[in-house]
């Protein structure tokens, strides 16, 4: 019946709830060979990474590339990187929700899903990182006959609480707006899938009480999740800034990490959105305006990131403390120097040109920036961790670090795991919140 108005929206997407639902459900991947192939490839890489992890546990930590004094390597880099990206979702979606940015509607769920998956992956790294992972549960505070407790003063214990809270929060934050869509999906499915969706919808009936409760809950959650997200990456930064390691012991780190996290989060969101758009044919939903708006945010974060980086390096250089200067020099010269300038190019120069010039600001350039920023931010984490550790206080024990195949495999595996989780996710639920989306009115 609403067919007559279907083409009325200038945005070109379907209009009317029924059409939107139908269209989005139709775009969910079936069991095409292409889809299965992608799942198989990602699954294969993940399996290989799992093998590498088992190998590392069975053969001792010597099979990694770690050494004295670089006791922390790629695992910590990846940990910070993934936890950083996880800020995409919640922070962006929460900020956009709270500020009432209407263009957010097709974007939020993709972002919130990134958060949950990144946290699941990032949260694994501390376990992969420790050399006796089978005793990981000793960090948990539980009463025991040995009368031992974890050390509540350790930043790693804070990490545990922060990540658990963040994971709980972001799962809830992803789940709440999914509830009406699960109910909607249940009506469109049969058999086991219908039962599963109905079970997941918690008995959603679409009454106005529920809508009001849901909207209120989302508003409150947005506030809470903002606070949590900021604190989580601050706590991750505390892991570094609480230590005596030169250049880490630094008050700028918590805000610097939060900024970097939002920065890389937006970049990841742009890349994920572009991929979804291409693979699922969501051109009518994820339109240029979304990419351009996110691009502007990305540019803003790039500038803030540049400011923080400059401040950090300027104070180090001006302070001229011998031990800090060792790290500074290492970071500016040789192999680390090359990586440093790649990082600056990726994080500052590329966004500045591609997003700063309004004529160049397009979907393709935003995505290019997103990829560049992801590379740059990964390098940033690398350059924070490795050079500082390889030039410790006493120069007699300095030493370099080359990751082994195990660390590289596990790193690759986590990227594949992210893709795999996303592939499974878009098969199970519509990636755009059906109840939130309305056929776009005329583009602004």
């Amino acid at each position, binding site marked *: 019946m609403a067919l007559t108005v279907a083409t009325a929206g200038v945005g070109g997407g379907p209009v009317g709830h029924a059409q939107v639902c139908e269209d989005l459900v139709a775009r969910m991947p079936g069991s095409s060979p292409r889809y299965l192939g992608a799942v198989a490839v990602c699954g294969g890489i993940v399996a290989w990474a799992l093998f590498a992890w088992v190998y590392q546990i069975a053969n001792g930590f010597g099979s990694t590339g770690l050494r004295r004094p670089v006791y922390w390597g790629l695992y910590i880099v990846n940990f910070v990187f993934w936890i950083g990206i996880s800020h995409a979702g919640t922070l962006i979606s929460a900020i956009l929700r709270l500020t009432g940015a209407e263009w957010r509607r097709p974007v939020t769920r993709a972002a919130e899903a990134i958060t949950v998956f990144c946290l699941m992956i990032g949260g694994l790294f501390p376990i992969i990182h420790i050399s006796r992972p089978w005793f990981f549960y000793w960090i948990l505070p539980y009463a*025991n*006959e*040995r*009368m031992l407790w974890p050390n509540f003063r350790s930043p790693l214990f804070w990490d545990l609480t922060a990540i658990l809270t963040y994971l709980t929060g972001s799962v809830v934050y992803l789940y709440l707006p999914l509830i009406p869509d699960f109910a909607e999906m249940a009506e469109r499915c049969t058999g086991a899938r219908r039962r599963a969706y109905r079970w997941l919808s918690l008995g959603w009936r679409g009454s106005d009480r529920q809508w009001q409760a849901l909207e209120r809950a989302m508003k409150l959650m947005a506030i809470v999740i903002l606070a949590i997200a900021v604190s989580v990456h601050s706590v991750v930064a505390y892991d570094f800034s609480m230590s005596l390691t030169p250049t880490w012991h630094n008050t700028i780190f918590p805000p610097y990490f939060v900024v970097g996290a939002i920065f890389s989060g937006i970049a990841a969101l742009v890349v994920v959105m572009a991929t979804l758009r291409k693979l699922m044919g969501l051109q009518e939903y994820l339109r240029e305006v979304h990419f351009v708006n996110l691009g502007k945010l990305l540019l803003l974060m790039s500038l803030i990131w540049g400011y923080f980086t400059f401040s950090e390096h300027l104070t180090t250089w001006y302070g001229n403390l011998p031990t800090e200067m060792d790290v500074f020099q290492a970071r500016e010269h040789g192999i680390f120097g090359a990586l440093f300038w790649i990082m600056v190019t990726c994080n500052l120069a590329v966004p500045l040109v591609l997003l700063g010039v309004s004529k160049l600001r397009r979907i393709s350039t935003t995505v290019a920036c997103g990829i560049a920023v992801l590379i740059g931010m990964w390098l940033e984490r690398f350059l924070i961790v490795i050079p500082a550790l390889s030039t410790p206080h006493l120069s007699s024990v300095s030493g370099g670090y080359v990751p082994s195949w195990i660390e590289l495999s596990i790193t690759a595996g986590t990227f594949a795991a992210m893709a795999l989780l996303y592939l499974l996710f878009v098969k199970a639920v519509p990636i755009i919140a059906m109840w939130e989306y309305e056929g776009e009115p005329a583009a602004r």
Partner: protein
Amino acid sequence: MLLLLLAAAGALMAADQPLSFSHAAHIEKARMQCTDCHSGAKTRDNAGIPSIRRCMACHQFIATDRPEIGRLAAYWEKQREVPWLRVYGFSKDAAVQFRHAPHARAEIECARCHGDVASMTVAVPAVVHTMGTCVQCHRDNSASDDCVACHF
């Protein structure tokens, strides 16, 4: 952390000892003291398992007609030690250093950790040794609860 795993407690049951030595017979009937055989218990780190020389010091003359004593004598003839199996011990991973002497000096009864060996024919790990057991006893007796008291 360190469950002080009884060195494979289950495996070291009665039947596995090379000779069916009876603690009860020695302590209750013969009125011997633990330290008569486990001579290190009061003064050294290890209580020690007696050597065959110590066994034969008595059993050259006492109860020589019993079949088990005959088997003991056979080891003696071959100049072999009896391959006793340890009943108590710490797993290697526990990284525990235990010294008998200070515990004996603090007048901790043998039975506190070893159970009522006097009534056992064959010694079995009657008391489960976990870190909780040690810590609790240390706290009850206001002994050191410093980790390095045992772990080094």
